[in-house]
């Protein structure tokens, strides 16, 4: 079987090698002051930004393909939402291309449709929060009771009225955040950082290929 240059490029080993090369270069750049390396990595970072910009376009194309497939197959209970999504996307893009993102119509559509609906959906969290607070924050055990007490103190600390409820709330809340929370967070951050290093080493050594699919 004749191996063409394209099929060589598609081999996973090529992707793993490129990942390793880029990763080692960026890590070396952090520790070493070598002008040629520093310049090369600066360019690499800019290539990364360009690639990310193209990925946005690719993501949009990918999304249109998926929704076009749903529309074509007339997937029950779904296809009309896909039609609406594609329609809105075309309108947003067309208006933004004609007027620019700073144009009045673009801004109106963004503020009135997107920001309004996003904020509204985020605010549903408040309702779920209150039902979860009532139902789930219960003193079932010693640890749960401690969680409950601390949650109440921190909630009151984060509201202006906390000091009015009890003058000690701000100081006690600050101590909880500054001492036990910081201690636990630091341990957590160090653990996560070590885990990230190990994952990075595995990725650069080609032992972790989950990102390749």
């Amino acid at each position: 079987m004749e191996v063409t240059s394209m099929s060589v490029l598609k081999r996973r080993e090529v992707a793993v090698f490129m990942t390793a090369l880029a990763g080692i270069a960026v890590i070396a750049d952090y520790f070493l002051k070598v002008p040629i390396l520093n310049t090369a990595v600066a360019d690499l970072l800019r290539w990364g930004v360009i690639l990310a910009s193209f990925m946005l376009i690719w993501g949009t194309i990918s999304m249109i393909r998926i929704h076009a497939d749903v529309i074509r197959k007339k997937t029950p209970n779904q296809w009309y939402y896909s039609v609406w999504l594609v329609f809105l996307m075309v309108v947003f893009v067309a208006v933004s291309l004609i007027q620019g993102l700073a144009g009045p119509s673009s801004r109106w559509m963004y503020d009135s449709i997107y920001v309004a609906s996003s904020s509204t959906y985020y605010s549903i969290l408040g309702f779920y929060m209150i039902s979860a607070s009532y139902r789930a924050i219960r003193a079932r055990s010693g640890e749960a009771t401690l969680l409950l007490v601390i949650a109440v103190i921190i909630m009151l600390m984060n509201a202006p009225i906390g000091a009015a409820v009890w003058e000690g709330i701000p100081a006690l809340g600050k101590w909880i955040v500054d001492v036990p929370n910081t201690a636990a967070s630091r341990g957590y951050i160090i653990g996560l950082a070590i885990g990230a290093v190990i994952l990075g080493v595995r990725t650069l050594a080609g032992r972790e290929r989950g990102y390749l699919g």
Partner: protein
Amino acid sequence: MLVSGRIAALGALVIVIVVYAWLLNRASKGKVPRIRKMAGFDAIEEAVGRATEMGKPVFFTPGISGFDHADSPQTIAGLTVLRHVAKLTARYKARLIAAVSKATVLPVAEETVRQGYLEAGRPEAYEPGMLRYLSDEQFAWAGGCIGIMHREGIATNIMVGNFMGESLLLAEAGYQAGAIQVAGTANRSQIGFFVTVADYCLIGEEIFAAGAYLFQDPVQLAGLGAQDVAKWIAIGAVALGIILNVLGIPVLVNLLKM
């Protein structure tokens, strides 16, 4: 040539790499570290079994991130769990619905589920409709997941990956749908919500142990061992630092500032 102020960090990195390489070598010879029981992972099989008994689907999501984000390791951890869940749903003949937030994650998730079904010996049972790409937009995706949970009447909700503000929305929706919930994230501002609402919770780094725990992968087990050694070194350094600081000896501080 070395950038000042970063030499200590380079030394620490070299130590971690050497320890990992040593443990990897040991793992290749069959000497793997033992890891403790993790109730969250053990509960997954029970949860899938519950779904089979009730004749209702299992819902899974690997979180909101893709592969181009600083939190992509959490997505990879989530997909590792998805492979295990797919294997179990294939074995127990439960229906699986998985929802992803990023278009780039969809093909990887599809391949992961296909792999799980293949490992369970039922590749013919895999259906592309199991995987749903909902939206890149955070709350549109969350709304889609909540809709699936309520419409499909799920029995089990498994959420492992990176979750942000939508975590409580998903957990509470899962509760309202009557599902047993296994949730895990390394996003520390959201763990509290999962701990409070979910039945089983994987806290922080535990999600990264998925590959090691569920598949006994020697490479990942060696990685966990290396992490533990590195953490013990860090603990030792902190303890030594406290003692030296109290005695007024700045040796360790100056060393770490190099």
